[in-house]
């Protein structure tokens, strides 16, 4: 009984372990420290976006604009670095722009009663347009100033053998975990997703919390944009296309309900790792990228069906 309870509570984790066992049987080169660090580094960008997405989905919302915010933030950041802006100024400005774009979507949701899907679809389209206008459809290089070298470290550097993006994702995870589990803000996020009307009457400022979760999602998308731009030493106008779907997939794989109110940030981290391991496995097993998409969709479907069955037998 205890084992069954544990299994139902931790379907995503068990899925990840089974996946890793299967892959290591199929391909001996999977099990190496280098490959693991590689998976973590590739996963970190999606994980960071997905953790912001978790906040929004817990309030029963969705944020489709993260991919566009990533690209816009990356473009602005690259041009600032290219113009020799001090590193911290460039980073904070970029994060603030991401948060402001997210807050704008959140305000449309809160004050005009627009569905989050529609509000962020509008955001996704307009911001992507703004990226293309801003970049004129061409990549923006981070340039040759001294600051560009320091900036590169954010995407390509290591501390004690661990890739810096992985460390950043780890810090983001700890902060998100703390906020969701041990602060008033976190409790309000769950409360709104669980029962918005009651939350309102219990004195929760629902509009403010909703704007804040979209701002968090936007800021984390911008952070992901910074890391991607740093690693590539340039901002691509098409960066982040369809990233919102990978982020949503990670959240759902992690067992968070799209209806809101139920889910854990640890689940999202595991969900992102499942996608990362799957991508890596299909790559080292030389599966064509066309088949990879089919396989990924299949795994997500399987995970969600298993999760639903687990919940209904509770």
């Amino acid at each position, binding site marked *: 009984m205890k084992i069954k309870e544990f299994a139902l509570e931790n379907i995503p984790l068990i899925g990840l372990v089974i996946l890793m066992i299967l892959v290591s049987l199929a391909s001996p080169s999977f099990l190496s420290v280098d490959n693991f660090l590689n998976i973590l580094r590739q996963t970190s960008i999606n994980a960071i976006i997905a953790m912001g997405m978790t906040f929004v989905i817990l309030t029963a919302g969705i944020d489709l604009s993260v991919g566009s915010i990533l690209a816009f933030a990356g473009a602005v950041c690259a041009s600032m670095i290219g113009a020799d802006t001090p590193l911290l100024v460039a980073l904070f400005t970029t994060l603030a722009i991401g948060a402001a774009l997210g807050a704008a979507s959140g305000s449309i949701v809160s004050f005009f009663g627009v569905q989050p899907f529609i509000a962020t679809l509008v955001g996704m389209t307009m911001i992507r347009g703004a990226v293309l206008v801003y970049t004129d459809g061409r990549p923006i290089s981070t340039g040759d100033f001294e600051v560009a070298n320091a900036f590169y470290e954010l995407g390509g550097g290591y501390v004690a053998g661990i890739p810096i993006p992985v460390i950043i994702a780890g810090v983001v995870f700890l902060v998100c975990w703390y*906020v969701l589990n041990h602060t*008033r803000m976190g*409790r309000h996020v769950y409360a709104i997703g*669980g029962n918005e009307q009651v*939350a309102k*009457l*219990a*004195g929760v400022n629902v509009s403010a919390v909703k704007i804040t979760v979209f701002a968090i999602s936007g800021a984390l998308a911008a952070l992901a944009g910074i890391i991607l731009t740093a690693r590539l030493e340039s901002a691509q106008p098409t960066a982040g296309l369809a990233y919102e779907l990978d982020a949503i997939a990670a959240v759902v794989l992690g067992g968070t309900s799209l209806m809101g109110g139920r889910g854990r940030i640890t689940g999202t981290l595991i969900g992102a790792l499942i996608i990362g391991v799957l991508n890596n496995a299909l790559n080292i097993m030389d599966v064509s990228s066309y088949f990879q998409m089919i396989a990924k969709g299949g795994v997500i479907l399987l995970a969600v069906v298993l999760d639903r069955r687990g919940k209904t037998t509770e």
Partner: protein
Amino acid sequence: MTTMKLLEVEELTKSFGGVTAIAGLSFDVPPGNVYSVIGPNGAGKTTLFNMLSGIYQPDEGAIRFQSNDIVGIQPHQVAALGVSRTFQNLQMFFNMSVLDNVMVGCHLRTRTGLLSAALRLPGVKREERESREWARQALAMCSLDRYIGHEAGSLPYGVLKRLEIARALAVQPKLLLMDEPAAGLNDTETMEMQALIRRICEAGITVLLVEHNMGLVMQVSDRILVLDYGSRLAEGTPTEIQKDRKVVEAYLGGEVKYAM
């Protein structure tokens, strides 16, 4: 200088389409009382509660709480002023623990924003500790101590009715609106609910009660307002109401036998 009115309702009117749910209703609730609103189904009791808690806006009239006009302000602002409520149909965060359910209401007296939550962890920790302490007190008052870690969705109905009250108390209200707290409860649970309502009142919280169980209403109320078709049929102490011929004819009927 103490005003003798905690809540003043003046010429309140609300219609839905062609139906007038509340028609020119006026009454005052004095502080420290259990004040009950009774009347047949459809008399407008829940509509009245929804206007008092800011969910509906009245078409006409005024609602003053501690002399502040609360018409037109948001539900969470009404709550911040000290008006909190429970529901006729149980409203709960079913996927959260009992303690968390109550802690959602605990924040109104604490003032840490997200930025300081990110920057000043010690302040956040203290706030969490205070909220938890206050939530425990609210739970203890409702005799829910032993359910603290349970998920709300797994608990029986009678316990959830009390949990709803604990959550409403966590807002630290001056006025608690209770919409049919005894509905669906068995006799023992109803007795416990009656004792709880008195305890809340003795703790200095004014209670505005809507309830169909006349035995409970007559036992627990200081004053009673009888509604019919959205307007006042009678108002007075339980004894006065039971003697009022209009009320007996229109509503109480055979239930007079519950009189003390």
